[in-house]
């Protein structure tokens, strides 16, 4: 049995290490959602084969808020998709760990420049939400068993495209699709409620036809339970709102929007790693 709490801690440690080395990137969102990524890759929420990352029957994880890349990179490396040392190449020239995650299809020859486990190109907010709908439609069309988990941020709900995608998911009854929305209340220029309020989010998602669960996103029992309950509604797309603490685990990052888009200095990283020990 994997200790999920310990996995989340390991993910956070790798996030701090890679961002400090890269000297740029987004810290708060990645740290805040680490508990969910531990559940996703180590808690049995999805089917995957690390040695065959694009196995046809795998469940798809679409990271729509591409700036959360460090958390996915750390989780994939710890899950064995690629060597953990490669995390040190984040944002460096020639790296497979681009600043925002990239999926590139090659129709001929090998594709060794592709970071294994990445399903979509993410960055401009809202795009992955539609891509996830397309994938879930394909799975349903072919009567396949694989499902899709789409991770987006709370500020991403300000993008009109997300709502275009939700209405489509509901229309086609995509029960194989779960939208996970990280509600950490910060965005690049300030607190979300001041920049552009998105309330009442739960009611809006419900009105768009989704089955919505609102939980403490830093509580793994609640995360596992929400996915379990979601299975009770096979004909309806799900939304799980994760109420998280931005920067969770590092006291001087927690809840501070100024950490949305910056990386720790080496001194700050040292302090953070000491706290995470």
């Amino acid at each position: 049995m994997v200790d999920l709490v310990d996995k989340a801690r390991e993910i956070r440690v790798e996030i701090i290490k890679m961002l400090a080395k890269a000297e740029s990137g987004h810290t708060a969102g990645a740290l805040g959602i680490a508990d969910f990524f531990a559940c996703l890759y180590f808690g049995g929420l999805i089917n995957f084969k690390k040695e065959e990352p694009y196995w046809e029957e795998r469940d798809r994880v679409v990271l729509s808020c591409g700036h959360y890349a460090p958390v996915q990179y750390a989780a994939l490396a710890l899950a064995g998709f690629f060597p953990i040392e490669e995390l040190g190449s984040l944002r460096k020239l020639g790296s497979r760990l681009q600043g925002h995650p990239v999926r590139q299809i090659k129709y001929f020859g090998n594709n060794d420049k592709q970071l294994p486990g990445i399903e979509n190109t993410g960055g401009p907010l809202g795009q992955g939400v539609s891509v996830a709908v397309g994938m879930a439609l394909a799975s349903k069309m072919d009567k396949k068993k694989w499902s899709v988990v789409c991770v987006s941020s709370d500020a991403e709900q300000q993008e009109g495209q997300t709502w275009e995608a939700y209405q489509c998911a509901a229309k086609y009854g995509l029960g194989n699709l779960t939208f996970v929305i990280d509600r950490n209340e910060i965005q690049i220029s300030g607190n979300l409620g001041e920049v552009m309020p998105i309330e009442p989010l739960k009611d809006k998602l419900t009105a768009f036809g989704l089955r919505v669960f609102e939980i403490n996103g830093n509580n793994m029992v609640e995360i596992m339970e929400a996915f379990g309950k979601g299975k009770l509604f096979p004909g309806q797309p799900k939304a799980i709102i994760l109420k998280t603490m931005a920067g969770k685990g590092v006291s001087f990052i927690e809840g501070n929007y100024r950490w949305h888009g910056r990386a720790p200095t080496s001194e700050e990283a040292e302090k953070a790693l000491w706290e995470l020990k």
Partner: protein
Amino acid sequence: MNLVNDLINVERKATREGFGEAMSLLGKKNKNVVVVTADLGESMKVDDFERENQNRFIQVGVAEQNLMGVSAGLALSGKIPFAVSYAVFNPGRNWDQLRVSVCYTNANVKIVGGHSGVTVGPDGATHQALEDIAITRVLPNLMVVVPCDFEQAKKATFAIASFKGPVYLRLTRPKTACITTATTPFELGKAQVLREGKDITIFACGSLVYEALLAAEEVRGEVDIEVINVHTIKPIDEETIIRSARKTGKVITLEDHQINGGLGGTVAEVLGEKNPTKMIRMGMKDCFGESGEPGELLAKYELDKNGVIKTIRKILND
């Protein structure tokens, strides 16, 4: 090239109709072909496909950003999605989604933009895509195809379905002259010399290829015009362009699109770098269109046969 024998008494059919016929056949032949549309299935002529393949027809409503994203997701799952809407919206409104979810990802999406050009007519300038070639041809991985008539639209649809990678296919609304036939060859990326000449080359695309042919015929005896159909804007057939420009030394480009960034821009880039040639670009001269019948608009903006003849005289006398 096996064109029609009589250029004057031609049959008229729309390129969108050729596309629709091809899609219906493709639906039967290839079970991976999926159509995704944003409320414009009928006027884009994919209603037959919809009837015959309900499970592979996705209607996203008036939501073009989602249209492109859903298509990318389908392509990443092994489907061959055709994202179908008007060019002003697709790729006009969803260019960011085209850039990242489709082109950067190299997803196998076929973007079909209908009702392009000023020949949309009465709907007016809001619905006349005059910039779509420019905004698509700058995107890496994306092929850009502009069929000149009904038959070519049909062939192009089959060809891009077989091609692996993203493609933009540009279609038009009105019934236009059928100049190619079922036996006219078609190869993606290969420009077609429809008429050989030695004095001036006209590089044209889309339905205006016909106007170029009519003009060339009318000035026969006075000046010898070569007409080349550049149905693939990207990758551009540099070899054919340079060969012809070297031969004639005078070049006109003709398109139902802005003169900036489209076929004219492409040819100017090729020739400017490899074989500087005297040249006039014909198209919309950095302006929007307006309501009117297609023929009236082509006449007003001097994109019809008479406009071409005027330009031929201009380049001869300059």
